[in-house]
């Protein structure tokens, strides 16, 4: 597609439930990033994937968070046993080898 696609755009879930957030990067982009944007905060790096290399998970806030990228394309961010502090906008971005980040519109997650 022309841009980075994220789904769902909005997700309301009950505390303790698991959620999956999806990101479809731009075709051909080798790098994929997940960020979290909380109200009044900047963007917090979560994880990135680069080609077939092991992902950099250094930004994941807890072991309840995990992500995978299948076939070097689609990525899924999973949050297990959601907590209210997980409420945020989760942003995905992709880029080719040379710099060129393109962000998706994000998934707004609300944990009630």
């Amino acid at each position, binding site marked *: 597609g022309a841009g980075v696609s994220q789904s769902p755009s909005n997700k309301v879930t009950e505390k303790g439930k698991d959620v999956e957030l999806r990101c479809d990067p731009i075709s051909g982009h*080798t790098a994929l990033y997940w960020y979290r944007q909380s109200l009044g*905060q*900047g*963007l*917090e*790096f979560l994880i990135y994937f680069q080609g077939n290399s092991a992902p950099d998970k250094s930004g994941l806030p807890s072991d309840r968070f995990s992500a995978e990228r299948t076939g070097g394309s689609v990525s899924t961010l999973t949050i297990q046993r959601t907590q209210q502090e997980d409420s945020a906008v989760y942003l995905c971005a992709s880029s080719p080898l040379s*710099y060129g980040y393109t*962000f998706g519109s*994000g998934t707004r997650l609300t944990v009630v």
Partner: protein
Amino acid sequence: AQSVSQHNHHVILSEAASLELGCNYSYGGTVNLFWYVQYPGQHLQLLLKYFSGDPLVKGIKGFEAEFIKSKFSFNLRKPSVQWSDTAEYFCAVKAAGSGSARQLTFGSGTQLTVLP
């Protein structure tokens, strides 16, 4: 690790006023610097970036930024703002080198409100 500070959390200007948003970073090595904008209800978009060369970079929509290495700053400027510039602005830094496979570190953002 790098960090970015945006000291102005909310700026309110009248149309035609000049704009300068501050951005300071902390990193001991060579950096790439960026400004992103997020208009209401839209996704983050790149305004401009600095990699090397002329420290005064020009971006879209009349924005420019100046990299001052000695001050670790990359302030965003626009001579005359418009109501349509109302948005949130994020400064970001990336350690240079190793291609794109280094994540951006973002500042906390500055909300700009331009009054008509």
